């Protein structure tokens, strides 16, 4: 089947593109690339029924995620598109009656029948339009988060930030605050000594071991999330956990920038299962001497528990950790999560 071969080629190209980039591409670019890939898959496969579409999407996303364990965005985008498709079908069939809020009251047989008999040709146009809206939302999420900086940062604030160099969202967030006339200081925590030179004008660079001494004078801490979960916990780049613990010690609020496509509907019980480590930073001569004798652990992410986070800054609103569960219901359908 030539269609299957084309789809396999598309998926391989997608994975190669992910792995080729060093450092890693920005999250919004990956999200948009995932949406485009899924759109092409839907176009190529041309599923007959809604059920076929769901099964196909679930399979493809599982394989893609299996190839790149740390990219939770792939799962997120796949489940979002499945929910969009489901909503289109139920809207047309149900005559506008909203689905019951509570699943125990839902007649599952009736819903399954609707999904299986829906004609995909009618749905496809609307689904494509919904996917376009999703892409637009992803593209604008960075600006929406940046525009909230004026609500969160005030004059005379001392803001301690992490991942400023590698995160465009963080950069835009702080730049927008500067442009809006906020008179505040920014302390940028860098991971390596060489990065101090490339710090932007509005920030002062320190290293991770200096955070403890600087924390008492900080009034805000801003981190970026690699993923966040319904129980309010989140993955942040390595080093964030230490910063958050110090912030809690000194009663400093911690804001986490988290666009909607990073909301993962599953719970993270074991961050090690992501198998993500950054490159070894040992000097070359030490590596030569120590080969096989030394394990150098360099994890990419830390897992923050929900009590360490004060506020998640999403592109639509600011959410406290205990309300992330409610946000999950806006983007994902519980049946899709259960089936996954």
């Amino acid at each position, binding site marked *: 089947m030539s269609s299957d071969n084309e789809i396999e080629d598309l998926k391989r190209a997608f994975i190669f593109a992910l792995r080729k980039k060093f450092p890693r591409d920005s999250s919004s670019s990956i999200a948009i690339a995932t949406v485009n890939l899924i759109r092409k898959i839907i176009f190529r496969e041309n599923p007959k029924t809604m059920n076929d579409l769901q099964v196909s999407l679930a399979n493809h996303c599982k394989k893609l995620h299996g190839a790149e364990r740390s990219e939770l965005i792939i799962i997120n985008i796949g489940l979002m598109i499945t929910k969009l498709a489901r909503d289109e079908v139920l809207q047309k069939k149900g005559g506008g009656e909203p689905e019951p*809020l509570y699943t*125990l009251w839902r007649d599952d047989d009736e819903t399954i029948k609707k999904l299986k008999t829906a004609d995909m040709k009618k749905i496809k146009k609307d689904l494509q339009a919904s996917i376009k809206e999703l892409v637009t939302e992803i593209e604008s999420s960075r600006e929406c988060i940046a525009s909230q900086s004026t609500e969160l940062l005030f004059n005379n604030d001392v803001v301690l930030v992490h991942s400023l160099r590698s995160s465009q969202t963080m950069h835009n967030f702080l730049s927008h605050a500067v442009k809006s006339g906020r008179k505040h200081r920014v302390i940028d925590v860098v991971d390596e000594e060489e990065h101090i030179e490339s710090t932007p004008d509005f920030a002062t660079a320190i290293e991770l071991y200096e955070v403890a001494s600087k924390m008492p004078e900080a009034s805000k801490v801003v981190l970026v999330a690699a993923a966040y979960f319904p*129980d309010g916990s989140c993955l942040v780049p390595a080093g964030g956990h230490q910063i958050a613990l110090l912030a809690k010690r000194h009663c400093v609020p911690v804001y986490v920038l988290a666009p909607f496509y990073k909301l993962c509907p599953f719970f993270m019980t074991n961050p090690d299962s992501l198998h993500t480590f950054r490159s070894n930073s040992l000097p070359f001569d030490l590596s030569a001497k120590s080969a096989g004798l030394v394990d150098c652990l360099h994890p990419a992410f830390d897992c923050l528990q929900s009590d360490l986070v004060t506020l998640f800054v999403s592109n639509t609103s600011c959410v406290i950790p205990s309300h992330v569960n409610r946000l999950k219901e806006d983007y994902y359908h519980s049946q899709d999560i259960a089936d996954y």
Partner: protein
Amino acid sequence: MVQESIISSFRGKLENDPSKSTSLATVETLLEVLDRSRATTVAEFQNELNQVVAALEKTDYSSTSIRSAADLFTRFTSLAPAALLDQEDFSQVLDLYRQRARSFIKNVRGSRAKISKCARLFFTHHMNILTHSYSKVVLETILDAHKSGYHLHVWVTESQPDASGKLVFEELKKNGVPTTLVLDSCVGYVMERIQAVLVGAEGVMETGGIINKIGTVNVCIIAKSRHVPVYVCAETIKFVREFPLNQADIPQEFKYRTSVIERNNLELEHPDVDYTAPEFLTLIITDVGAMKPEAVGEELIKMYI
């Protein structure tokens, strides 16, 4: 009296099938009432159900389960399109109620399997799990995980005064799960090697806390102090619209069996259940997914909207 035959039918359901939960038996009994009902107005029908529920609560089975199941059943079956309620012929409304009731029961029957599947995510290989008291949901969850190839070591408390932990212990041993029976006072001793605490719930309160077998709050407090996660496995049919803030706030009929209350010398009795506050619980795993205790209030709002 019709109610006596209903009560005997209710008892028969639970005695004939030990694996059936009180909630499910309650709902099935109410469906029987619905099938027999010859009411001609909604108010008459509601009154009929209320009388049956009051009679069921006089049995010695769990008042918590009976109340939550009955409330949900009544709420669910009585939702009807407005146009249908205007019909002169009430039998059409009754037919709709019966159809709704049957689909409700089908969902309730599948709850345990859904919880087991959802809880699987939180297990790892060679995990030490502590459980307290006897819970069919927890038992099914552990056995399913064992069949799937997870090597779990289960530590079961004795759960005095009725030693229901021994029932769990025997059941697990029969199925080949490595298990250890520990004294109730031994929980502090073994907690440092436990990776997760898994408990059922007799009722899930609107606060997000749970009502469960006496001693549960001890286990959860020890687990909290040792930073061990506490997972609660409970069907959503066990959600109760009560908002207790401490042990004294638990309604009496939840704490004691009906026969004990009738004797009226509660000073000499100890309660059957205790209340565990939500701050000691990590997650509540239900058939609609895992949720933080804070999310229970939202689920209840959806149920009773």
